[in-house]
Every structure is written in structure tokens, then in C-alpha cells.
């Protein structure tokens, strides 16, 4: 299927409608008039003022491990916390830090088994002030390059499975994409897919790179659409989760 500009706009506005049905109607109409992100920004601002954010502490990024642990974090949340986070558009702050140096001072919601990352919250910003003051924004300016497809299996705590595991492909559009931006796009796509049940415990994901996402051989189950940073008057599909394969 082709990911046309119209489709991208529909996906972007639908995401806002799902997250904030109380705010989105007017914004969606405006967004359809103008793709520019001012409307989205204003919505994000409203979400931020009353919302919550997760804090991801990043020590080391290996994408397969990062994908698995991001899902593990989202899977560990209670429905109430998931709902609140979704309403805040799964806002996440990415900070450079070593979880092993922070565990005595801060309560993390999830720590990667290999210690390469940890997640706190999602909580109101004031709850994570101490952590944010101690650390610095994650900076990863390296541009991504192609990799061989690699499959990861999402964690499956015993008795936690509501359905049989399935397999999907996860595409990331790597052209002009920095590592730091990749974390943001993957983070939103994966978290929101876990929250709405598209991804579940034990699912398999094959992580694939592609320069641009313009067509998909398998229909998508979820798309990450955001302003194209090279052409801010357009939208771009940064990542896609396919239907079961």
C-alpha cells in the first residue's frame, strides 16, 4: 500500500483524536486545513500542562534491545498509568545516564535486564525533577544506516498472556534520521501499540531498515507520522508496524 500525504494526515490526526477526544475535534479540523505543526504543538502544550511524561535514561543503544525494553516498560504499566500517558501523547524525555548509578536514588518503573536503559514514570514532571536535574538530554547525532533484519521477542511474564503471540515487521525510515530521533519515533510507536493492544507479551518483531517509507508490502497496523524535519510543511512516516506476518 502507498503511504500518501492524505493517508499520513489522517493517521496523524487520528492519533490526536484517540489520545485527546475532548480536545481533538477542533484541532483535527484545523489540522486538515494546515499540515503545519502549530496545531499539533498547541495540543501538545495542553497535554503537557496537565499531563504526564516518562523519562528514559539511556546508557547504551542497541536497537533490538532498545525495542524489546521499550515494549517491556509499556507492558509493565497499569491501565490507569497507560491511559494517562496516552492522553499525554506518550510524551517521553530521553536523558543520558547510567541506570546502575541511579537506582539507589530513584525508583524506576522498568530497568533493562542488561542495564543499558531504564524508565521512570510516566508521572507529572514535578515527580521527575530530581532525575532531570542530574542528567542531560540524550544526544545522538549519528545518522542511522541500514542493518540486516533482526527479530526480537517481547517479554512474556508468566500468566500475562491474553492472546497467542503474533509476529510483525517493524520498519524504520533511516534516511536523514539521527539515533536520537529514532528513539523518539520508535518510542511513540511502540508504546502506543502496546497500550492499544496491537503489541502484546511474547510477540515477535522483525526490525527492518528502509530509507523512506513510501509503500508497504504488508498493510500497516500502526504508523508513526510526524513533521518531516527536512520539509516542515509536510508529514513523513518515520516508522511502521505491519499487520501480522
Amino acid at each position: 500500500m502507498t503511504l500518501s500525504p492524505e493517508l499520513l494526515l489522517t493517521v496523524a490526526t487520528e492519533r490526536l483524536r484517540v489520545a485527546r477526544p475532548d480536545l481533538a475535534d477542533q484541532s483535527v479540523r484545523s489540522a486538515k486545513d494546515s499540515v503545519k505543526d502549530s496545531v499539533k504543538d498547541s495540543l501538545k502544550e495542553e497535554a503537557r500542562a496537565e499531563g504526564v511524561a516518562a523519562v528514559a535514561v539511556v546508557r547504551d543503544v542497541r536497537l533490538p534491545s532498545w525495542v524489546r525494553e521499550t515494549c517491556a516498560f509499556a507492558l509493565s504499566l497499569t491501565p490507569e498509568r497507560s491511559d494517562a500517558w496516552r492522553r499525554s501523547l506518550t510524551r517521553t524525555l530521553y536523558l543520558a545516564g547510567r541506570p546502575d548509578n541511579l537506582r539507589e536514588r530513584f525508583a524506576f518503573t522498568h530497568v533493562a535486564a542488561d542495564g543499558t536503559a531504564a524508565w521512570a514514570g510516566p508521572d507529572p514532571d514535578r515527580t521527575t525533577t530530581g532525575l532531570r536535574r542530574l542528567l542531560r538530554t540524550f544526544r545522538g547525532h549519528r545518522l542511522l544506516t541500514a542493518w540486516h533484519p533482526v527479530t526480537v521477542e517481547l517479554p512474556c511474564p508468566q500468566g500475562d498472556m491474553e492472546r497467542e503471540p503474533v509476529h510483525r515487521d517493524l520498519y524504520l525510515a533511516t534516511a536523514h534520521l539521527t539515533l536520537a530521533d529514532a528513539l523518539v519515533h520508535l518510542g511513540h510507536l511502540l508504546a502506543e501499540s502496546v497500550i492499544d493492544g496491537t503489541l502484546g507479551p511474547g510477540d515477535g518483531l522483525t526490525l527492518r531498515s528502509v530509507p523512506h517509507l513510501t509503500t508497504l508490502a504488508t498493510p500497516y497496523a500502526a504508523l508513526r507520522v510526524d513533521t518531516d524535519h527536512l520539509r516542515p510543511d509536510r508529514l513523513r512516516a518515520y516508522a511502521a508496524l505491519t499487520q501480522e506476518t
Partner: protein
Amino acid sequence: MTPRVLLAPVTVTPAKPLTPSHLKGLLWTDVMYRATAAIADVTYRYSPTTYHLTEQTLGFWEFLDRTQGDLPYDALSEEEIGDLYVLFRKDAPAPAGALRPYALEAERNGWVHPASARVLELWTRHYSQLGLHDPGLTTHQPPGLGFEEMVEQLVGLGMGLDHRSGGGPVYLDATRYGLPLRQITTPDGHPNYLACALRELLPLAAEHDEVVLLYDPELAPDYTLLQRVLAELGPRVHRVPVGRVPIDGEIRSARHGGWHDHTAGALLRTLEADPDVRRLGVRLYFVAALGAGQAQSFRADLLRKSLERAVRLLRRADGVRPGVDAVRQELGRHRRDHTHVDPYRLTCSLLARAGRTPDHDLLTTVYL
């Protein structure tokens, strides 16, 4: 066994004249070094080589070559070179790639730009006139660790975070002690002065029982971090802040200029005294009269008074030679709970002992 003490003062970039603030730091360190050396095994580490690799030094060298061409650096004064440094600080920073040839030359071949070589040569003369121990201003003293080795050791200690593979910087991470993450490189891998200090001090700290860091109070957060890292390697680490000397109530960085009437060279020209009087007098002023704080502005009249006191002290001490053991005993009184001697307490004791006879052996050991 004699305790091993490492004195590691912050160094001055050889790109400008020494100011009263620099002189104060150097004189404090010198008194501490010479007093402590009488009772302990002391390493005084002051290596310009280590810090040539900082952006401000390499950037200055690149700026000179790009904008000035061939200048007769051998004939320039430190004030003239300092004027060029002020111009450099007003200029837009050069791209990192332009500094790389300079970094490689300095790192691999111990190369020093003739402007900085000239400044260091002039400083050695000031040191001589002030009776300062020269810790190797013009000697090639590379740090014990290469940059990669330093990062590896830092990460191994649990206090390093290396994000270069993702296009990020290297951080010093003492967050387990509640200290904020501190970047020590630019994303393209260029080290800042803290990275240079770590290359030098990590291997040295492990070889000493006590480390004393003398620094400008404005650098306190970085020196608190250094203290934490070095203490991981075993020694007791002390921080000794030595405040700057305001000029007319204002603390200014040398990079902004405005120091012409107050350079070390200008001051020395006004101190046409006997060498012993000059050496003791400047220490009485910069160590005892000004103290560790930075509340008092520089006052030439008080400096002259300190020289007059030095004349009287030397006269009274003339011929009083109680010997090495007595000197050691006296120095030991000014150590508190550490091995190194407190320069302020020791120097004040010279002034406070109006009723007692000053000891010429002590003056010779520490001050002259």
C-alpha cells in the same frame, strides 16, 4: 613510610600575561609545596603539555596562524601576546577540523606554538624572580593516559558514560553521589580541560596517599567531581579553593583584557627590592594578607607594606638557625588533619609571632 602527596593546581593557559589572580594561585601552591616537601614526599604536577589540547589553547594557535602569519614571537612581550589572545576570544570559534592538525602535533610530537613557547619562557623568568619552584613550564610532560585509556578507565570505575558511538559526547558520571552529569568532550570527541585533567590525574592519584587540588572557586562543581573520581582510586583527596584577586572591585577573566597595569611583569618592575625581601613580601601579601577568599581588591600600597614587613622579619630572623628538625616540627603544626601544610596558617603565623624570633631556616625552606 613517608606519605606521598600530589599537589595538582589548575594551570594557566600560556596565552596571556600572569595577573594578580594567577600570582596568588602560584604563590599559594609554592608555599604549600615547599612546606610540605620538608615533611612528605611531594609531587608538584603542573604540566602545560596536558592542557595544550584544550580548545582554548589549540584555537588560539590556529587563530594566530590564520590571522597573523609569521610574527617575531621571540621578541614579543606577554602583554602583546595577551592582546592577540583577547582578539582571539572575540573571534568566531574555528571549526573542530581546523584544530585537529594542531592537536595531533601537540599530542604526538610535543609541539608548542611559538607564541605559547614564548609566554612560558617569560613566565620561567617571573618564577625565578619570585623564587617559585618551576614544576616544568617548558618541559614536555605528557599525561600518563591517552584519551581512550582515560575513557575506558572512567567507564570501568562506573563513572564514565561514552555516547560517541551514537554521535554523542563522553560524560563524567558521578550521579551516584548526587552530582550532575558533566560533559567532558564535544560530540566530535574534542576534550575539554576536565578530560585533560583526568588523563593526567587518574594515573597519578593511584600512586599517592593524598591529593590536593588547588583551584579557582568558580570551578568548584568540576573540582568536586574530580575529587570524587580520584578518591575512587584510593587516596584522600582535598580541595583547596584559592579565590581570585579583584581589580578595583571587579573579578575579570584575562580573556577580556584590561590587565595591562597589573601583570606580573608590571608588578615585578615596581618591586625593585632585594630578592629575599621581594620573595617573602609577595607571599606575605598574596597568601596571608589576601587569604583564600576573593573579597579584597588588589592594593599596591598593601603589597608595599608587606615588603616592608618582610624587611623587618628578615632582619629579626638573621642568624636564627634552629635546624631541620625544628623546622619540621614547626611545619607540622600547620597540617591539621591532613599531610599537606596549610599555606595560610603557616604564613599568618610568621606575622602573628611579633614577640617571638622568626626562624631563618623556615624562611629559607619555604619562602625565599
